[in-house]
């Protein structure tokens, strides 16, 4: 049985080409890798190499032929033990659906081939988005466990440190790496004391090389370690974002589940104080945009400890957005080393019936201050601390809005495609009938962060701006 040589597709979009030149004549011997012919596409002239070996038996499409459809038989190759007699009465069959075994291919003309290929393409794309196919709901992490254990008053930086120390004691795969985390005790003193307890093998000062050490951390996580990669601030992680997204977040999917990246990226995010545009930016919507990541943003001591511990234990890549301006703030935090918070669960920090305010990280303070101010006017705001930005606890927000019928979102980040924009969409899709006023966003101003004290203050959400937005959606101006 002769072997058919088919018109090849030389790019993902090629459907036909010109047979420019034959390099082999009938009767020539052919070995793998020999150039058989030259094909002209709309972009270039390419050589077609032989895969099978034998003797060129018959050329079916002569050189100079234009618009030869992909997968048209262009020649017949005689196998090692075949003579020309095998060509007698042989009818080229071509290929439908791409079987290389010509015995199985149904005879059909070239046009039929092409139509079938198109039909197949259509059915494929159809198959990808069948009717009624919905993405699965995010798993409900269940209610937050009531914690009635012992607490103590500590700063956020201590809560974060304790979270890491406890997890490092419990799991020797966990290590911390980053700039100044060891001997300097942390640029913001978050890792204070960890080097003393765990030694330089597990508390590792890196060179100033975010792209490199983020990638190194991801590689170590692929090998089964549990790295905590500290960025001195998230601003510098833009150098490393390729590894966070392309190497960490996408690998499990690209590997079909074979290999993932259990890693924590953490550091201060958002507006610092008087450091201008390159050092003051909120990355919440950047990372929350990406499937394959979880993103948490703690506010309280409970959050800091419970979310960071949960992140370290989680088998997925997690972005922990801390806030420099909260590091020195004191909160009550659990002393129990088994305490963790569920990732994906928001917390209602203040109950209210008139309006819902969502916030995360430092903006929870701003939202709570606004709520106090509004309470003196008789408006009771419900303040939701989002805690996790991906997966977002939409159920808690929706339930609140069903009660209050109005919502204001607060974030330090820019308004365009921000977390507030996402919440607004969720409200449109899932709570439209309960809304008595448009969803309103209070965001950082849409400008790079200015240095001047007065301008910087103008660029950030304040309790006054939040209260104003609430009065507006309450038609109480």
């Amino acid at each position, binding site marked *: 049985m002769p072997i058919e040589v*088919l018109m*090849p*597709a*030389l*790019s*993902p979009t090629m459907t036909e080409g010109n047979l420019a030149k034959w390099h082999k004549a009938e009767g020539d011997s052919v070995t*793998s*890798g020999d150039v058989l012919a030259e094909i002209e596409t709309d*972009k*270039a002239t*390419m050589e*077609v*190499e032989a*895969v099978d070996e034998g003797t060129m038996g018959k050329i079916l499409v002569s050189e100079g032929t234009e618009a030869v459809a*992909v997968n048209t038989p262009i020649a017949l190759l005689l196998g090692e033990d075949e003579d020309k007699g095998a060509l007698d009465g042989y009818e080229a069959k071509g290929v439908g*659906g*791409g*079987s*290389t075994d010509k015995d199985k291919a149904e005879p059909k003309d070239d046009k039929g081939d092409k139509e079938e*290929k198109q039909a197949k393409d259509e059915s494929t794309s159809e198959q*990808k988005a069948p009717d009624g*196919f919905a*993405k699965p709901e995010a*798993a409900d992490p269940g209610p937050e466990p009531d914690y009635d254990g012992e607490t103590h008053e500590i700063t956020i930086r201590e809560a974060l440190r304790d979270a890491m120390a406890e997890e490092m004691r419990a799991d020797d795969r966990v*290590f911390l790496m980053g700039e100044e985390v060891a001997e300097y005790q942390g640029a913001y003193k978050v890792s204070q004391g960890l080097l003393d307890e765990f030694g330089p*093998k597990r508390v590792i000062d890196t*060179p100033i*090389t975010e*792209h*490199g*050490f983020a*990638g*190194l*951390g*991801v*590689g170590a*996580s*692929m*090998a*089964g*370690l549990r790295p905590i990669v500290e960025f001195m601030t998230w601003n510098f992680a833009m150098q490393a974002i*390729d590894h966070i997204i*392309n*190497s960490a977040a996408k*690998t*499990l*999917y*690209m*590997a*079909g*589940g*074979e*290999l993932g990246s*259990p890693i924590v990226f953490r550091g201060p995010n958002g507006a610092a104080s008087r450091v201008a545009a390159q050092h003051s930016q909120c990355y919440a919507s950047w990372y929350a945009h990406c499937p*394959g990541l*979880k993103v948490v943003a703690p506010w309280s001591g409970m959050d800091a400890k419970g979310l960071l511990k949960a992140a370290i234990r*989680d*088998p*997925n890549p997690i972005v922990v957005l801390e806030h420099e301006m909260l590091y020195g703030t004191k909160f009550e935090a659990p002393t129990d080393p088994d305490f963790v918070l569920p*990732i994906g669960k928001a917390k209602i920090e203040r109950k209210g019936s008139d309006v819902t305010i969502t916030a995360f990280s430092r903006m929870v303070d701003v939202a709570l201050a606004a709520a106090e101010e509004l309470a003196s006017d008789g408006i009771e705001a419900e303040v939701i601390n989002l805690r996790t930005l991906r997966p977002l606890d939409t159920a808690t927000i929706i339930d609140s809005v069903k009660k209050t019928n109005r919502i204001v979102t607060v974030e330090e980040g820019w308004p365009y495609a921000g977390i507030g924009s996402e919440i607004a969409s969720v409200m449109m899709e899932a709570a439209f009938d309960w809304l008595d006023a448009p969803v309103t966003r209070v965001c950082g101003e849409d400008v790079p962060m200015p240095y001047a004290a007065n301008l910087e203050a103008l660029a950030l959400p304040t309790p006054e701006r939040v209260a104003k937005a609430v009065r507006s959606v309450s038609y109480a101006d």
Partner: protein
Amino acid sequence: MAGKSKSGGKSASSGSKSKSSGAKSGKTGAKPSKDDLLQYYRDMLQIRRFEEKAGQLYGMGLIGGFCHLYIGQEAVVIGMQSCLEDGDSVITTYRDHGHMLATGMDPKGVMAELTGRIDGYSKGKGGSMHMFSKDKGFYGGHGIVGANVPLGTGLAFAHKYREDGGVCLTYFGDGAANQGQVYEAFNMAALWDLPVVYVIENNKYGMGTSVARSSATTDLHKRGAAHGIDGQKIDGMNVLKVREAGIEAVAYAREKGPIILEMETYRYRGHSMSDPAKYRSKEEVSKMRDERDPIVQLRDIILKEKGIDEDGLKEIDKEVREIINAAAEFAQESPEPDPSELYTDILIEA
């Protein structure tokens, strides 16, 4: 070669990491036996035939997107793989089918991934550039040029952290050698004495740009000098020379720290399937194929020095062809992933 002049005022402080070797034939550092040579021949041929078949399936529209073939470079990965022990790890960039086969991954699973089918190594969700096998110590398959270098350095970090005696072979190309993150990784590898062999597969072109047109200095094996990492240039078309250098480099990495091997090699095909390769002459390609082909070179040695005749090799050719044909058939018969796979493997349920 390796490490005799390791500079930087830092002692190679890692402790003894020797582990039992010789579990597999040909991995002891001894001169390869006749059987070893036949094995290298078979393994290189398997990559060649696999890639030719992949090219054919691509031409038939059964493989989509990017498809970077390894034809011509087979000696590099087969020579280096012969130097590894169980527990070592391998990572590479996007021209990766050869590395997968060399680590022992099943041609059927690799081919089925190329055709985007459920029985592919990544259930059809990764494609040509993204396959992994923890079992075989293969960590991808990475599509961002240079990104696998810090990742491989991290694999080496994990070997050292665990004190398991393992080494990571981190392959990348001449193009990636100009990425900044490569040098960030070199710095940390040298600073922390990480057990990594950086194998630069210099096939002379980063896509369509020759090394000379993209690199201020073209001796890529010297690129570690600023970090005290020694390197050597090796004839990457000769599997025995690759192996000889590889044994020494892997041993050095295992005991002391990072080392660079620059493999002078050549890809016969374009950068990817749709590359007509107009940036080099036909004569250049045919000269390499005719005079330095890695499979032909080894074949000649086997025929002349090892008392094997053509028929003996034909048996191997036949066996390999059958394996590849079976892989191609498998890759076409395996079904496409179920639509429900769209939303799986995004996160691990904690």
